[in-house]
């Protein structure tokens, strides 16, 4: 990977808007993105991913690879949460609740990282299997449920009957707004196809990159406000947050290449799904499922450490790894 690629992804509009948001928060500017506007942009971006994928799947057709992809995504979700949890508890002696929460955040999918990995490929004009983004809920739910169950197993001696059951967790994951919008958009795009979408698609296609860039301003503001929390973080845990996404990318890229995805598809699978650490949906799930964990810690790691590293280094790294593996395997 050349420095040029990293510079290019650093000087792209989403990263610069993110930096602007952080800066505005640090200098205590009165800049705010209104709550409803931020939420609307988030909903728009997820719907756009779903619809674009659906239209593309309509053109390419469905094959067995979709089912294999879904199984692989589920298994990787479980595996990454298990690896993260084991590492945090055994190597760094983190308590089960915080280890479960952190491993869950990192195993779960970051929709922003997914969005930016798609805009990255769009920019360098690399094609990818359109269904890959829609594997989001499989990996996300698998990782969260695994992390919670692992933590609960260790905590059970302390007796805690209030948290949601495994069944409730699965239902929560599969009915979450992210899942409904992504899968819903995919189905709408698939049913209507390119002709049916002709009039609606420009909205989702043309505005996608601009909205993704602007949304990063909102995320930058939130991240900037939480910057100070990093000072309190244990150095090993900080190291984990820096290193774990890279491990996720390498493991997921290898498996995605083995199941036959193209380098573009491998990139989205490896960084957009596996590499990102969730900071929108996971904090809510973890707060109720593992209330003993410190919510600020895992959020700061996912938002302030993993996201910038992934956006600047992780996405180009994943793409180059994918290209390398396509030649090697």
């Amino acid at each position, binding site marked *: 990977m050349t420095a040029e690629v990293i510079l290019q992804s650093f000087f792209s509009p989403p990263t610069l808007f993110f930096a602007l948001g952080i800066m505005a928060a640090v200098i205590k500017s009165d800049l705010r993105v209104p709550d409803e506007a931020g939420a609307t942009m988030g909903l728009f971006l997820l719907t756009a991913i779903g619809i674009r994928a659906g239209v593309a799947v309509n053109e390419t057709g469905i094959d067995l690879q979709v089912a294999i992809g879904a199984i692989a995504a589920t298994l990787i979700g479980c595996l990454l949460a298990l690896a993260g949890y084991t590492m945090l508890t055994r190597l760094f002696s983190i308590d089960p609740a915080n280890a479960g929460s952190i491993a869950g955040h990192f195993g779960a999918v970051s929709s922003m990282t997914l969005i930016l990995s798609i805009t990255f490929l769009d920019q360098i004009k690399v094609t990818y299997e359109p269904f890959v983004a829609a594997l989001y809920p499989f990996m996300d739910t698998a990782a969260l449920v695994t992390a919670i169950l692992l933590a609960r197993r260790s905590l059970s001696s302390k007796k805690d009957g*209030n948290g949601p059951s495994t069944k409730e967790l699965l239902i929560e994951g599969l009915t979450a707004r992210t899942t409904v919008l992504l899968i819903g958009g995919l189905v709408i795009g698939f049913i209507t196809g390119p002709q049916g979408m002709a009039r609606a698609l420009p909205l989702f296609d043309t505005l996608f990159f601009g909205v993704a860039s602007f949304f990063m301003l909102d995320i930058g503001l939130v991240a900037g406000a939480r910057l100070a929390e990093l000072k309190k973080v244990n150095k090993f845990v900080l190291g984990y947050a820096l290193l774990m996404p890279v491990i996720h990318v390498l493991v997921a890229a290898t498996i995605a290449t083995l199941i036959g995805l193209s380098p573009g598809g491998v990139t989205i699978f490896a960084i957009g799904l596996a590499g990102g650490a969730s900071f929108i949906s996971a904090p809510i799930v973890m707060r109720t499922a593992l209330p003993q964990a410190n919510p600020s810690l895992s959020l700061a790691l996912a938002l302030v450490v993993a996201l910038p590293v992934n956006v600047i280094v992780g996405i180009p790294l994943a793409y180059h790894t994918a290209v390398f593996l396509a030649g090697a395997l």
Partner: protein
Amino acid sequence: MLAEAKKVVIITEAVIEEKVIQLLNTHEVKGYTVYRSLTGKGERGLRSGLGGLLNFSENVCIEIIVSDELKALAIMEAVYHKFLADKFAGIAYLEDIRVIRPEKF
């Protein structure tokens, strides 16, 4: 025209709003009011929303009016043991109020 009643006020984390309400329902309260998107500061630091990204660090305020003080105390005790004792941020307090149409509570 006005009758004495008790108002239980619970200010806690937005993420457990539904769970608190489920608990209220098991106490057969006849009604409640929820105020959302609240910000404040307490033992666990500043609690405020995150620009529409997540409401998980916001607070909600849930008010319940009951005519019977024992019932109000039972509700407060249940909320305390289930949520506020150690796991979630929040406070609960009781107010003496006067209501019109006491049969509603």
